[in-house]
Structure formats: C-alpha cells, structure tokens
C-alpha cells in the first residue's frame, strides 16, 4: 500500500512534514476546575481537571506533595466499531499511567501538599495520535485550572513509512505496521518527558523521526500558548478593574 505517493502527498493530502489542523477550546466542562477540548485533525479529546482538592482516600495522602490521579477512557462511539469496554482494559490503563507520569513531571506538586489533582481525559473521536492529543488537552486543562507547572507539556507523534519520516500519523497510517514514535516535551526547557515507540527502527532514522516529532511538539506549543494568552486576556477584560 502506498502511503506516500510519488508526488510526495500522503493519503489525506498532507505533505510528509505537515501536521493536521489543530483546534483547542478552553472551558468545555463547566463543572470542572479546569477543562479543555483539543482536536488534531479528526482526533477529538476532552480533558477535565479537578483540584487541588482534599484527598478522598486518606491512606493515599502524601504529606509533602499533591497526589496526581489520571484516567484515560475512550468513548464507546470514538472508534469505527463500538468498543465494549471504555476503561479498565490494558491499553487504557497503560495510557493513563503514561499521562500521569508525564504530567507529574511538570506540575509543581510540592506547592500543594496533602491535596489531590484528578485529570480525566476522554477520547470522543479517535483517528490516530490519541495519546498526544490527550496530553495536549491535559496541559490546557491544567493551565486553565491555575495549577502551577514548570512548563507546558506538548506531544506529537511521527512515523516512518515508504522510507519517509511522516509527522502526525492518522489511524490508517498508524495501523500500517510501521514504527510509531510519540514524543512529549517541555518546549521552553527543551526536555523530553515522554518517548515511546513500537516496532523497530535503525538508530540514524530514529533520530530523524524523533527530531521531526519534537518540531511538531514545538508547533503545538506555540498554538497552545496563543490559545492560553487569549483566554487569559479575555477573562481579565471581562472581569474589569
């Protein structure tokens, strides 16, 4: 199957180094402390953050830090075939753990001791790159909730098909069997917090693919920054003096 045709266009008409269209909306869940909806092309994800609030299970309370809990679910209707078990299956548990570790690395937990921060992420429409979209949505939701962070965390995926590094794979390209590299970075500090890959890649090609994903992350970071600044300005103007 040809994933990159001779003219250099992919299946959905993008160039190999082109990302899908990004769209973010802050305040999707009005009852949460912070919430956001993030779209990367056809992948739509909603994130809600509750906290910092009182720890619900006393035994889990940590005396000097905040406890971070994360739950990743996919809505039944998010994939082509209606999924039977939205959470509790291995993939969801793994992705929940991955998102939790990624966000825990950047939240300044020592500023909120003996409290709990809950991050709930749900995939409404899955078209490849759900992990990245979830991390981006969680970053927006945490910033919306006013939780102090070291830096924004942005994430993007990339792959290698038909001897070309491709940025931001969609579902068809992802299920082609080629390698899929997901990178999560702190853009200002220029540090990597998440690096996952399935399948094998030779070392030099891996460097190219990871570099491509990192640049995609930086592009997402610029977009997220703009969205957050605009939201802050809007809230401040409405509030008045």
């Amino acid at each position, binding site marked *: 199957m040809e994933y990159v045709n001779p003219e250099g266009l992919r299946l959905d008409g993008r160039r190999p180094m082109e990302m899908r269209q990004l769209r973010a909306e802050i305040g999707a869940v009005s009852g949460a402390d912070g919430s956001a909806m993030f779209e990367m092309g056809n992948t739509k994800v909603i994130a809600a953050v509750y906290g910092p609030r009182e720890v619900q299970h006393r035994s889990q309370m940590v005396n000097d830090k905040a406890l971070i809990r994360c739950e990743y679910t996919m809505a039944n209707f998010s994939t082509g075939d209606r999924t039977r078990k939205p959470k509790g299956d291995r993939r969801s548990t793994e992705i929940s753990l991955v998102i939790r570790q990624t966000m825990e690395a950047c939240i*300044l937990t020592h500023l909120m001791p003996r409290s709990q921060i809950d991050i709930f992420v749900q995939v409404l429409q899955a078209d490849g790159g759900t992990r990245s979209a979830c991390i981006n949505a969680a970053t927006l939701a945490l910033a919306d909730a006013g939780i*102090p962070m070291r830096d924004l965390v942005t994430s993007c995926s990339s792959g290698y098909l038909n001897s070309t590094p491709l940025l931001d794979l969609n579902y068809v390209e992802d299920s082609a069997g080629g390698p899929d590299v997901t990178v999560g970075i702190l853009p200002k500090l220029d540090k990597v917090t998440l690096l996952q890959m399935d399948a094998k890649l030779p070392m030099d090609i891996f460097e190219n693919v990871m570099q491509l994903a990192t640049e995609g992350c930086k592009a997402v970071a610029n977009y997220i920054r703009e969205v957050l600044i605009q939201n802050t300005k809007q809230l401040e*103007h409405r509030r008045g003096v």
Partner: protein
Amino acid sequence: MRGMEMSLNQTQKLRLQRALELLETLSSGINSNSSVTVADTIPVNQEDGVLKGHGTTELEGEVVATVCGVIERVNKLVYVRTLRARYKPEVGDIIVGRVIEVAPKRWRLEINFSQDAVLMLSSMNLPDGIQRRRTAVDELNMRSIFEDDDVICAEVRDFMRDGSLQLQARSQKYGKLERGQMLTISPYLIKRRKQHFHHLDQYGIDLILGCNGFIWVGEHVETKDNMIEEEPIKPDPQNNKSKTSMSLEEEEQTYTPLETRQNICRIANAIRVLSTLGFSITIDVILDVVDLSISKGLDIHEMLGAEFSVLVAEREAERRNSSTRRKR
C-alpha cells in the same frame, strides 16, 4: 462561553459580541501586556532586588511564570495573579462553607480550597452563650449545633501547620445559615472589601459574599446579641424540642413569605448571570442587575435565558464606559 448553556440567535450573538468588544477596548489600555502563560519570561528591570512571589520561579537567571495569569508588581515584589484558580485564603477573610464531617472536637468544612477547613468546637459559641470550657457532653452534642451538609459562615483565623485553614465563628453574625440559597462562583470575581455582609432592606434579604466564591442569599435574620446577661437563658429541653418537631403554629410563624422567596431567587439568578459572563460581583452590580430585570418586567426564570444575558452584558459595558469617562 463556559457555563452558558443557552443558544443565542444571530442578533443576540452580534449584540453580545459588540458589548464584549467594547469591554475589551475599555480595559485593554490598562493591562495590555501583563497577561502571561506558563513558562513565559516576566520582564524585570533589575535582576537583583526583585522578590519573586506566587506564580513565579527562577530559570537561568530569568523570572518565569508557572501559571497563566496577570503580572502584578508591588514595589519590588513581582507575582502572577491567577484567574480561575481555587480560593487563596488570607487571615480575616469571611467565608461560607458546607460541613462535610463532624470529627472529634471539630467540624470539617468544604470551602473552595485545596484542603478542607477545620472549625474547632472551641472556636464556636455554645448555644447557651456562656463562656466556659468545652466538656465531653458538649462534644457529644456537637451535632445539635452543626450537622453534616449545613451551610456555615465563618472567618479565617489562621493556617494550621499542614497548610489547611482554621476558622472561627465566635461572633453573632457567623454561624449556621438557614432559609436561603448558597451559590458557587469563581473566587476571582469577588474582591476583598470592607463589607461582605449586606442587608438588603428593600427585599428583606441577607447577602453574604464569601471570599472563597460561595455566596449566601437568604431571608434576613435578626442577629441578636445573647451575650447580654439580662436575657433569660432558655432551658435546654425546650431548645432541643424546637429543632426536631415544631408545632404547626410555630411553623406558620416562621414560614418565609412568597415574596421574600421570589426576591431570593431573583438575586441568586442575577449573581448566576454575572458569573457566567465573567463580570466582577459587587453589591452595586447585583442590585443594578436586579433592577434591570424588574424594570424589563422579566420573570425570574427568564433571567437565565439568552436575552437577559445579552442585556446584562450591554448594561455592564455601558456602566464601565460611563465610569471611565467620568474618571477622565
């Protein structure tokens, strides 16, 4: 817009947009460059002699924001004020909270903070008003003072060692709140003022703007000072009976009249509309919105509709416009 569940038709959208744009132009002159997001560098003049306050951290010699918000500078202190975050308590704040748990010698209250607040039994007046040491019998009767899910008004006394708040409710104006509604809004919309207790005579209503974002709107209750020794102290059995089973006549006497209840709902809806639109909430603004709704002859439930939200936005834009013009 967050929390706005109604759909606006085309003209309403245009009117709302115009009102919000006017608000933006009015306030953009003041604070245009001071909004920051996470990991933005904060411009500081001298690197030495700058106190880094809340919401900032140091990175490679630069001051960097850790939250999204607005930069505030006070002399040498630079900090970032967040907007939609949880309540940031200060000693002496008036807050409204809900009892979550009755624990040994204390009540735990939920206020909009990262931990639950604690109201010690010793920080609360006993029902008979005598100043004495709290005994084991008092501890067993804690539920007769406050129970689970009661709404309470109190004041922040200080911070405990683990960071949670300790409250006190020793004055007559604090204590259990009955016959009314509690509303939840974002704390940043309520500014710290001299007066948080408002008695609205023309509606017969008490309004308490808690600094933590919980607002109480209720029927006016006369706060009598029972520290005066001349007042006869009622014996205990009678008090207990009056709480659990009231005779029909007593219930009729303490029945809240319909008009007061309607006023409570009207004021509560006015606060809800203001918080959805994101305007700061002060007593003048609330009364203005209530007057607007009465003058337009709107029903109480219509206040939560699309048309009234647009009207409130236009009114707010007008008010701020005229106040900035007056300042000039």
